[in-house]
């Protein structure tokens, strides 16, 4: 046994030595949530354009990446943070972990759709854009004889019951933006009504953004609410999937930023410059990446059917997205969705199914009482425990900041909201079942 521990100690000793040997100049360390299919082409192109610099890509999901940068700030070894979700950059910026830098680039407009491309204070910059939409598996849709959806509201129709998937907004920055877009576009009450009617049809609410395209690609779920490049790159890899942008969609930039106290600041800035240069923007057009460049001139080199938000005014132009409104209630919206939908999905689905059944019966045999009951049931499902003002109030926001301020604890609020939703879903189900009896 002693011998073994000596051997282990020796191993650890040599490990310390060999591990310390790497530390070369000209290395740019990038923490990113992007997959190899995205990072590899950029790495190759960047290293070719900047001889002497090498790109070291550390792949982490967005949340883990943010935690990593935060935990290691005392002795930071990371130069660049590179990810989709703008709110992750807001978190990093808020914690003082980013460094101001405005990439040298020409011809990049202020806004894409209605969303500003760069952080107004230049802490982070957009390098590509993406919009949310509906992706579906064509074989699945044909086998189940399901129509092609065009808009968010279509997904609330009874035919799609149990056929739709989405990532939880608390887990996916881009889904969060979609939810927020609907809430801002339709108003708080109507927005939640739409969201819950749609969510009542969900088969799953995944905890990873990529879980949705994966489920649609493999045909386990028919329809998914996804960010466009997941659909485009799935098509490029040959999966039988289709995609549509609904009328209400935001086009949001994917971003890149220099980390505060970056060990290789010059290299980091060179990488940012490259990403927004025409050469870097063209890399986005590769089939495995397929994101929308932020430089309008680059679209001239894109394939014919490539969506162009600078020309196609339907993309993202209809919504006015207010970042300030969104920021104040980020946590509240996420937790509200989780507590009233994600963790109550079964009860919500039971109520939704009962309402669908009752409405189908009423369509065949009209009955005023039954109609009134169904309306009550729908209102019960749509009810929210807090209104718009409360959601962005400092009291509620304070509950989600952990140990900093006194006040309501997150767990207390969550239990209240969950109980509120569950009770109403059960009442709604009972009313809809009653309506079904009347209309029969």
């Amino acid at each position, binding site marked *: 046994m002693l011998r073994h521990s000596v051997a282990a100690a020796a191993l650890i000793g040599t490990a310390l030595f060999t*591990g310390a040997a790497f530390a070369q100049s000209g290395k740019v360390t990038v923490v990113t949530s992007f997959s190899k299919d995205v990072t590899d082409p950029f790495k190759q192109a960047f290293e070719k354009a900047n001889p002497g610099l090498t790109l*070291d*890509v550390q792949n982490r999901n967005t949340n883990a990446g943010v935690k990593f940068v935060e935990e290691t700030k005392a002795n930071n070894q990371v130069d660049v943070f590179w990810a989709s979700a703008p709110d992750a950059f807001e978190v990093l910026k808020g914690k003082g972990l980013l460094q101001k830098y405005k990439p040298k680039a020409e011809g990049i407009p202020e806004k894409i759709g209605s969303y500003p491309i760069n952080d107004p204070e230049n802490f982070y910059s957009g390098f590509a854009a993406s919009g949310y939409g509906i992706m579906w598996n064509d074989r699945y849709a044909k086998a189940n004889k399901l129509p092609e959806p065009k808009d968010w509201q279509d997904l609330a129709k009874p035919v799609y019951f149990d056929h739709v998937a989405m990532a939880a907004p608390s887990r996916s920055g881009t889904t969060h933006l979609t939810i927020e877009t609907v809430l801002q576009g339709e108003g708080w009450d109507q927005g939640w009504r739409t969201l819950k009617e749609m969510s009542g049809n969900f088969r799953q609410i995944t905890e990873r953004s990529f879980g949705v395209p994966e489920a649609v690609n493999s045909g386990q779920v028919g329809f998914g609410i996804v960010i466009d490049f997941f659909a485009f790159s799935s098509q490029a890899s040959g999966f039988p999937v289709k995609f549509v942008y609904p009328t209400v969609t935001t086009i949001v930039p994917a971003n890149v930023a220099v980390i505060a106290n970056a060990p290789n600041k010059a290299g980091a800035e060179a990488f940012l410059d490259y990403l927004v240069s025409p050469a870097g923007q063209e890399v986005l057009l590769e089939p495995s990446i397929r994101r929308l460049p932020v430089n309008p001139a680059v679209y001239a080199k894109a394939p014919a059917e490539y969506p162009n938000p600078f020309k196609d005014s339907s993309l993202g132009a209809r919504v006015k997205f207010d970042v300030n409104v969104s920021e104040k209630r980020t946590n509240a919206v996420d937790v509200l969705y989780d507590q009233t939908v994600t963790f109550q999905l079964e009860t919500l689905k039971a109520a939704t199914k009962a309402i669908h059944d009752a409405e189908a019966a009423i369509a065949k045999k009209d009955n005023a009482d039954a109609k009134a009951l169904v309306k009550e049931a729908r209102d019960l499902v749509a009810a929210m425990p807090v209104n718009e003002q409360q959601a962005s109030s400092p009291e509620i926001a304070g509950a989600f900041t952990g140990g900093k301020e006194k006040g309501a604890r997150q767990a207390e609020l969550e239990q209240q909201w969950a109980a509120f939703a569950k009770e109403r879903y059960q009442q709604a189900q009972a009313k809809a079942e009653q309506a079904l009896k009347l209309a029969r």
Partner: protein
Amino acid sequence: MAGATTAGRTHAPSASSKYFKKLSAKPGQIALALGIAVFLILFLVVPVGTVIYVAFTEKGTGEFTLVNFLDFAQTDLFIRSFWNSFYVSAMSVVVASVFALPLAYITTRFEFRGAMLIQTLGFLPLIMPPFVGAVAMLLLFGRNGTVNLFLDDWFGFKIPFMEGLNGVIFVQAVHYFPFILINLSAALRNIDRAMEEAAQNLGSSGFRLFRRIVFPLAMPGYIAGASLVFVKVFDDLATPLLLNVKDMLAPQAYLRVTSIGIADPMGYVISVVLICMSILAMWISAQAMRGKDYATVQRGGGGLAKRQMRPWESAIAYGAVLLILLLVLAPHIGLLLLSFATIWSFSPLPDAYTLAHYSRVFGESFVYVKNTMVYASIAGVIDVVLGTAIAYLVLRTKLIGREWLDWAATAALAIPGVVLGIGYLRTFYGVQLPDGTPLAALWIMIVLALAIRRLPYALRACYAALQQISVSLEEAAENLGATKVRTVRRIMLPLMAGGILAGFVTSFATAAVELSATLMLVQSNADAPLAYGLYVFMQSPAGRGPGAALGVIAVLLVALCTFASHLIIEKSQKAKAAGH
């Protein structure tokens, strides 16, 4: 039998062992216990403590409080999650036993061609590469998987294999039954043939012999495996999340700990609950074994007598074994198909086959394979060394507080990998090496995290192995003048060899595909293990095939190592049988 210990025989009675003798064994044991305690405190208790202390602090003031635990008890979701986790874990043990018992019994008790191959194959489910394993499983058993598409086509119905809690039980049982298989097989091999013969002489045979003599004697192995399955399922977050079951405890902890902007203590409260439940389960299993003596003195027999089967018996046996193997290996068959598939979408089988995925990963997989082998084997060695030492201290000494070593090591099972990862970053990132690189950036930290996370597996195996050895053998050695150290090395370790090897293989194999802590600690591609490479691929539609190919490589790699160690066990068994 002595053939198993080869190293160091020549210079055994050296000056150092005399020195130990003079001091009597006690100080040595204390030093050993202290050493292990320091290791566990440094690499487990402190890093985890820096993260989960939040569970005990009051919001706003940061003072000590238990109000968060009251919140836990008052939240419907958590209570529901708690009972769901409990139910799923208990049922998984039952289903896993159904898979494991026949395999273990048939392969150790009968002359069965391919027993070693079956032991190896039966071990494979434990090596389920992250992400791809689940995708493969869904493609086969999912709502629109191969099986259900066929069923729907032919009979017009579908079986919800993968839905809700039952889906979790099914997948967990398939995934973790090797824990029972491997520990039970090791225990069965260790049973003294004389016991069985005595029972036969007294007229017992068949199922009665198994129920009254063989199974009770193998109990330590079964309990070791079953308690591991229970705790592991209770603490596992990957499978429920992949099946989109969120109302279980471990997924709840994970979802809270990893969400941005939600800095509330509940995630850590749940972690504390998980840790307590794991320790409780281990304590209960220790109590169940208490007051019973499973040790046998005679160890020369080479395990149970293997007998020939009659033709109809062997037909049934082969049928049962094949059926179980087909079921539990389905995910790997799916994985293999996936790695050769061009497109596999809403169809029973892939559209076409290609070798392109392998050629894509071939170049870059070498560094991943090398890292994985290095990390997993060092972690495995650390684990069996610690596991043997802890088992020895708990079972053979009267040191006060020795159980705490066991419980602390076991608690590692309940700590979400991401919590351990963050803890390591917090504790070791500030520590700098002379050239300015942080300590946490070294790959050895990944190894230590893996070793800590897999220590409970090796510990249980070593513990069970030691339980089966009679103290009187050691006493005899000491009476003959052997020192404690010499007794341990020449008597105990050889007798425990099978169990230790089982522990090593389990730790090694599961460390080879671990991801959650690794993902936090990997600092550069050159230091990344296979599981990380796989993760990087599995984030894009085009990466599914290459990811599956890497998964197949990982599984093959670990399978080869497992097969090799089974060969070693078998050889040493034969040597034992021949030597006496």
